[in-house]
């Protein structure tokens, strides 16, 4: 009993439970969901597909977690920023042409330009949120609406193709690696981020500012600089996600890259058991949340739900998962379960 209690109080218990639930559904409905085949040293299967497709979302979720934690608000522009970054990368590499078979500029230059522009977008958001103290959702609404327009301007309303094998690498598989490259990109981002949080006091500072900005200022933290940094970081990560998404289709499709992904990213954060009000956060929770969402989407496809109906089923599952994590519901349940007491969050005496 005490072991079980310890397990249920583990911070990532609920996010992991949700992921397990989604997978369990597959075990019943689509047993071959878990089948993995090997061809040319590469792994294939639904699970691998989930791991592959979730990569951009994982990258976005990492950035979103930090922005939410520090500012208590969400950045809804990340999907559009992905499109902007993709447009910049492709157009630098194509030298402005609509479709090329070889680079007009060095690969590295293209990537750096794309990520720099994404960072600029992050700075813009950060400036509005941290310095001008505009509500994050309103501040990022600007790039949410304008971002795709800017991307269209860059690509002059067309889809820019970069048909060079090297450009496809980030979005596909390479020989010798059993898993697709996007997965490694996502892991790289997660690992770097975890290292930064472990080796510096940034995580503590972000939580502190998110919990109580006034106290944080008085203990010498520069609240607005910390919030600004998280938005800058979120912008850079959106740029990297845009790069991966664009590599998959070796083109910049301003209308579709990252479409609605900001919402999935916010949802990942929430599914990970993080409060959208800011403060304490769990990066791993958000990562698990991102994989849960992708597992859900892939599950629905595996069950032959047509793509225009997917959102409906997704919504139903999300309602269930989110209410599972609701403290009110937990309180309600514990009342009907004798011997189990809801943990009170109030102070002693």
């Amino acid at each position, binding site marked *: 009993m005490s072991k079980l209690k310890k397990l249920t109080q583990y911070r990532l218990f609920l996010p992991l439970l949700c992921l397990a639930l989604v997978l369990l559904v597959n075990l019943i409905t689509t047993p071959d969901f878990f089948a993995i085949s090997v061809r040319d040293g590469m792994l294939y299967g639904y699970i691998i597909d989930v791991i592959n497709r979730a990569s951009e979302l994982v990258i976005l979720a990492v950035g979103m977690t930090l922005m939410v934690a520090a500012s208590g608000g969400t950045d809804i522009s990340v999907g559009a920023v992905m499109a902007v970054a993709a447009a910049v990368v492709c157009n630098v590499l194509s030298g402005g042409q609509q479709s090329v078979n070889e680079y007009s500029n060095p690969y590295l230059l293209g990537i750096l330009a794309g990520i720099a522009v994404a960072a600029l977008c992050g700075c813009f958001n950060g400036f509005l949120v941290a310095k001008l103290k505009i509500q994050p959702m309103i501040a990022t609404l600007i790039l949410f609406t304008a971002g795709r327009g800017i991307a269209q301007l860059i690509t002059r309303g067309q889809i820019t193709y970069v048909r060079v094998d090297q450009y496809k690498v980030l979005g596909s598989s390479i020989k010798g690696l059993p898993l697709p490259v996007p997965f490694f990109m996502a892991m790289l981002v997660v690992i770097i981020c975890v290292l930064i949080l472990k080796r*510096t006091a940034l995580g*503590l500072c972000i939580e502190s500012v998110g*919990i*109580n900005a*006034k106290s944080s200022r*008085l*203990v010498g933290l520069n609240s607005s600089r910390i919030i600004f940094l998280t938005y800058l970081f979120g912008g850079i990560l959106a740029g990297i996600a845009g790069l991966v998404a664009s590599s998959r289709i070796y083109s910049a499709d301003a209308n579709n890259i990252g479409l609605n992904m900001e919402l999935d990213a916010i949802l990942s954060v929430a599914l990970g058991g993080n409060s959208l009000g800011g403060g304490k956060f769990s990066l791993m929770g958000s990562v698990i949340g991102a994989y849960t969402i992708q597992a859900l989407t892939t599950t629905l496809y595996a069950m032959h739900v047509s793509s225009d109906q997917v959102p409906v089923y997704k919504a139903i599952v999300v309602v269930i998962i989110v209410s599972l994590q609701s403290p009110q519901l937990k309180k309600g349940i514990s009342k009907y379960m004798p011997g189990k007491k809801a943990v009170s969050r*109030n*102070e002693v005496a």
Partner: protein
Amino acid sequence: MESGVVLTMRNIYKTFPGVKALQNVDFTLKKGEIHALMGENGAGKSTLIKVLTGVDEFEAGEIRIDGKDGAIINRSPQEAQMNGISTVYQEVNLCPNLSVAENLYIGREPRKGGFIDWATMRKKASELLEDLDIQVDVTKAVENYSIAIQQMLAIARAVDMSAKVLILDEPTSSLDDEEVEKLFVLMRRLRNQGVGIIFVTHFLEQVYEVCDRITVLRNGTLVGEYKVEDLPRVQLVAKMMGKDFDDLAALKKEGEDTKVSDEVIIEAKMLGHKGTIRPFNLTVHKGEVIGLTGLLGSGRSELVRAIYGADKADEGELFVKGKKLQINLPIDAMMNGMAYLPENRKEEGIIADLSVRENIIIALQAKRGMFKLLSQKEQEEFTDKYIELLQIKTADRETPVRQLSGGNQQKVILGRWLLTNPDFLILDEPTRGIDIGTKTEIQKLVLELARQGMSVIFISSEVEEMLRTCSRMAVLRDGMKVGELKESELNQSSIMKAIAGGAE
């Protein structure tokens, strides 16, 4: 239920992780009495109140209220209110960005045809406040008013709910004497109307001025219930502490052999911040404890905030150890050896969801910079050191600081600043809402720190406390520093005269 009794609580139990907050506690409240609930920090007063008002659940016991058959369980403050129990908490719980009228009638707005009847609401609010002699504009947002006024509004709201039981949890800790007197007038009026009032306070004088009976708690258990006239002050203190108590008297003597050096640590020349504090001069020597005194809103906090950069000074000059400084942000002040314990513990002091450890190390971490993380080992050592030094009562160092009692939270913040090893420590109401035992500890600590060469600015509403600790006092009135008192001038009557002004 016995006649004349409005509320009984019997055999109440409540535990928090690692702490037995209430054990077998009984409490009885009669109609038309003011009943003091006394105890040190962590004695279980706030928990008893929270259990009664449905903020927290209790594990065992029963609560009965006049007019209801059988035991009641309040699952939320709303339910408690419907049962006739209204509360005004220590920390004001109003919505700062809503108007006074909205705050008074929130959740029970007068309606007309399904819509809120704003005109009636404003009219009722004005009448209510006029009755209580509180002068405010009911259409203005609450955040425009001082904590004192906000406290009065919270009380007005509770009163207006026509409660059978009114709970006042440390209502006077942010009021000045005149306001306290007004509150007492109001409390007596309510008592005569038959309301049972539970009064939680740390001010002994107030208990003897206004209360009829006293219930004493210690370490989560009931010590006893007494009539005020049967329990002299000394005995009450002894019951609360569980020991004899003469530390307070001994303190002053210890303070007298403090030698003040000529070395100047802080010198403010015509420093000021528009709208809060007019330009002032102030010199602080090494190893000196300076008190700031004045009525609430006289500019005591504002003066130190201007020095520390909490409100950036917009005129004048500040010299630290003879060096002219431009302080834009608190971190600039910290880098020059300053530390500031703010008045408002909940809003500006603790970072509630972070652990005791994180709350203690955060200032030092900020001083070192974000990228030079203190190692886990250092963090734990520092935390353990201050938990022991200040005797912080906590389950362990990873407990979220919000689970600690008010006094222990204050000690955590004190530990946070002592860890940065400051030359100049600003304490703004460090003992507000804190029990006598901890108060004495803090006062002793201040004197000890001064002896070691630290300079301290000490702000307190209690003149006796400042007399015990300070070697010099600056007097403020209406946002202006009006004078200084030292040596032979340091006594109650001359301070009162200086504060009141005009009489010299």
